[in-house]
């Protein structure tokens, strides 16, 4: 049990690292570092010099830095896919009578295989903004499944978690609402990025602030909903930390983490709108969104656990 839980946590961390790398590939403009898929310039390892390019590729297209950024990302993706596959096999072998672990493990394994193929379509479409968003949403779903598996494995090991805890009654529905709002916010965020990347193509001379000015109502909707999410997060976390009797250590840690992530996200949002979308902040903003959705899920499972038993 302990080994499985640790492996699940490790796989979850690896999945989040992969999401971070995916964001990094995008902001560094390395998405087409390998113009083909699954190979890179027709080879399984990217060429180290343009002299090694197969003749059908335009040597101008080859940029060794971008090729290796993209290639490393694919390699880590393959590794994470392998970890999730091992987790699913493990779940089938040992936890086939625990549907809360078995089902998400199998779904995650199927999704991650699909995700690999879909990532190829993203490259072959020259990074069509909509396909990029689909790729991101699937990644977040996989990460959420991993978080859920790790948490259920933890509960199998520590069965009495939440036994003593008493949370305010309204907190369950509030956390459900928060989770929905976070999902909506992630989708708005990807829409915002789609709109921005289309405008950046059309206005190659414009600065980040000018680009933001060009996009529609979503530039108000996204920060507004973000503010609402932060307020709701603060209320829920405060209730877990101060208004509950003996909250579990997991719930206590999660509540603090949610507060920290919410405040960071607001700071990053402000930095992005006033300082023209700095690349690194974009990556972190997206990554924290992924972490937040996972953390809200932990909080949700924690505060509803007692009622289920």
């Amino acid at each position, binding site marked *: 049990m302990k080994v499985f839980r640790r492996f699940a946590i490790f796989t979850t961390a690896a999945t989040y690292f992969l999401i971070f790398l995916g964001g990094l590939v995008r902001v*560094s403009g390395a998405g087409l570092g390998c113009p083909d898929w699954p190979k890179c310039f027709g080879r399984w390892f990217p060429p180290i010099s343009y002299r090694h390019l197969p003749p059908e590729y335009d040597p101008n297209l080859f940029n060794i830095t971008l090729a290796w950024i993209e290639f490393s990302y694919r390699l880590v993706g393959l590794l994470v896919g392998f970890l999730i596959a091992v987790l699913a096999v493990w779940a089938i072998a040992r936890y086939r009578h625990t549907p809360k672990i078995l089902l998400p493990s199998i779904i995650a394994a199927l999704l991650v295989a699909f995700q690999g193929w879909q990532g190829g379509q993203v490259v072959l479409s020259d990074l069509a903004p909509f396909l990029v968003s689909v790729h991101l949403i699937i990644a977040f779903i996989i990460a959420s499944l991993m978080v859920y598996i790790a948490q259920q494995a933890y509960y199998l090991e520590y069965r009495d978690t939440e036994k003593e805890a008493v949370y305010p009654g309204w907190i369950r529905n509030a956390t459900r609402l928060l989770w929905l709002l976070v999902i909506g916010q992630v989708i708005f965020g990807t829409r915002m990025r789609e709109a921005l990347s289309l405008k950046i193509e*059309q206005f190659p001379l414009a600065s980040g602030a000018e680009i933001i000015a060009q996009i529609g109502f979503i530039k108000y909707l996204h920060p507004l909903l973000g503010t609402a999410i932060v307020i709701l997060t603060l209320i829920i976390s405060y209730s877990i930390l101060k208004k509950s009797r003996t909250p579990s*250590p997991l719930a206590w840690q999660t509540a603090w983490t949610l507060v920290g992530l919410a405040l960071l996200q607001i700071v990053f949002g402000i930095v992005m709108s006033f300082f023209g979308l700095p690349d690194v902040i974009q990556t*972190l903003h997206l990554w924290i969104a992924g972490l937040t959705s996972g953390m809200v899920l932990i909080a949700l499972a924690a505060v509803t656990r007692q009622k289920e038993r």
Partner: protein
Amino acid sequence: MSERQKYPKMLIWLVATLIVLAAFAAFVVHQANLSRSNISVWGELPDFRFTAAHNGEPFGLEQMKGKLAVVNFIFTRCKRASPIMTTNFAELYKLYKNSDKILLVSITVDPEHDSLPVLREYARANGVTDDRWVFLWAPTEEVVRLCEQGFMLPADNLPLGHTTKFTLVDGDGMIRSYHEGLDRDGMILLKNNIRQLAGAL
């Protein structure tokens, strides 16, 4: 695990991870930007004076200065390469519809047939409504000279032997890159270079 932890260690770990990842991201983005920034200079475009189809006035290097220009060589009767090259130009024309700093230049390699009215009709048929995309006319020997000595591209057996390369010329009249005008890879790289060089205008 029954005792409550006294400090939010999960949050502290995440923030520490975040700082490490931010430094890593900054390094990777910096390397990626460095790798793209060195778009070499192939040569300087010599002065020339052709005729623009849309207004019949002289058009040359002077009109290209201060803008990023993409230049191709086509002829309207062409059945093979030119239609694809023009389709790709039309895509760029649409893409950059909000940027008057990006200029598309199509030079005819068949001046006998492609008179100014023929070029105007060809432009209209391809959706050109303003002077962000110009069609230029000059006698064959001047076209050959500019193509071979100016753009350093082959111009044998015109019109059929025209080059399929797109040439990117920066705001100072310097030739910055050549791109295959018939395929997707060439267009990707051209758009990337436009974005890089646009920053310098």
